[in-house]
């Protein structure tokens, strides 16, 4: 099946030109990076842009860089780049662990971390992990640059805080001492979207961030679960108390990939095992990154 919708295509060679192109077609221009979502949506007639702005020739967007303790990931960085980066392996292996669960090699070679949170589907793998990292999303638009807290990023189903005339240039995360885990429930490796996902980042003094994917219209953090955990050493009773909160915190749907009940019960198991593993990784013990708990 071909793409039935006609559109213009531009591949600007500067950020200014990319922003300018978006401004020419207010609300009807789509940004193309890896295209693994956008081209599929074009095929499905799920989106009908007048203009597609391919940002792959915009310089400076493909970098992974560490500045003191802040790791910056440009908007053209693919999931394969994350898996193969020494900086990621040394400072944020959780991102590589997440990236390894995305689609297949052929998808990961093309799909970008930033594109994943811009598509903002409920099951996006990058969403829960960047929430758990308290990431910052950096945008450039006609009025200049601004930064959006990832906690304010996902505003609805497939909707983000990005304005139509803005380009995401990078995301940044604080990579000071932490442990973390990304637990993804899927039917099989290779292609499947998450049926449910839990991302946890724990900092020293047991400061937890706990985020969920595919069990609500957007990825989200649970303040109730984080508050219950904050500053406390894990024990079976504490884990049991926060696991008991899961069913109230999430709002999964039943669809062709899983029932709401299955998603709920599995999310409880994933949080339970994930908490122990994340704390273990903070202290350098237990499961290595990439080793899975389900």
């Amino acid at each position, binding site marked *: 099946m071909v793409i039935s919708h006609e559109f213009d295509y531009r591949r600007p060679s500067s950020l200014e030109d990319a922003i300018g192109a978006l401004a020419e077609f207010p609300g009807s221009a789509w940004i193309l990076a890896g295209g693994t979502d956008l081209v599929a949506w*074009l095929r499905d007639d799920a989106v009908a842009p007048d203009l597609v702005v*391919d940002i792959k020739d915009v310089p400076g967007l493909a970098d992974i860089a560490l500045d003191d303790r802040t790791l910056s990931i440009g908007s053209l960085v693919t999931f394969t780049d994350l898996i193969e980066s020494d900086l990621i392996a040394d400072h944020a292996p959780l991102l590589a662990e997440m990236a390894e669960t995305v*689609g297949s090699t052929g998808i990961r070679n093309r799909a970008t971390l930033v594109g994943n949170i811009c598509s903002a589907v409920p099951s996006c793998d990058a969403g829960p992990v960047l929430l758990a990292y308290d990431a910052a999303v950096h945008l450039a638009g006609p009025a200049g640059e601004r930064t959006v807290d990832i906690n304010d990023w996902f505003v609805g189903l497939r909707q983000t805080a990005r304005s139509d005339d803005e380009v995401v240039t990078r995301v940044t995360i604080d990579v000071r001492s932490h442990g973390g885990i990304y637990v993804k429930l899927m039917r099989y490796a*290779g*292609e499947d979207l998450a049926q449910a996902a839990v991302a946890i980042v724990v900092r020293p003094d047991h400061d937890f961030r706990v985020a969920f994917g595919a069990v609500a219209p957007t990825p989200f953090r649970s303040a109730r679960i984080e508050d219950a955990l904050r500053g406390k050493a894990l024990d079976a009773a504490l884990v049991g108390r926060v696991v008991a909160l899961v069913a109230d915190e999430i709002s999964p749907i039943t669809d062709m990939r899983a029932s709401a009940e299955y998603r709920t019960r599995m999310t409880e198991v994933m949080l339970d095992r994930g908490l122990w593993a994340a704390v273990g990784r903070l202290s350098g013990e237990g499961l290595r990154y990439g080793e899975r708990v389900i």
Partner: protein
Amino acid sequence: MDLNFTVNGETWALDVAPADVLLDVLREKAAVKSPKIGCERGDCGSCTIIMDGRTVRSCLVLAVEADGHEITTVEGLSFDGLSRLQGLFLSNNSFQCGFCAPGIVLAATELLERKPNPSRHDVQEALAGNLCRCTGYEPIIEAVLAAGAGGDQ
């Protein structure tokens, strides 16, 4: 729009529309038929091509995105006869209907270039996005393992 790219070492200058998908342009205008039209949504891997050394799903790439890039398909692996990997696929009787074969050959080729002696897990992971409805995958995995640096016999 102008599309200037290299397919299996041969340069092409084509006129394409922005909405043309690379898979269709390769098959209909650039004379390669090995990338197959399967799910057309990036799930099955049968449209896999190698673009600048990496496998991509050509059903999810606009043709104009390939401008200035270098593409390899199975046709391009076989100018001097079958590759060693292809020979092992043959001797292992790895494929039946063969529809998935071009994608799997390219996915395995990419794996062996990155990791010359892959483990079974590596092979399974590398081929996880290439669906085969005939073989149950075992003879495919065995051939890729045999093609690894340790599997010369």
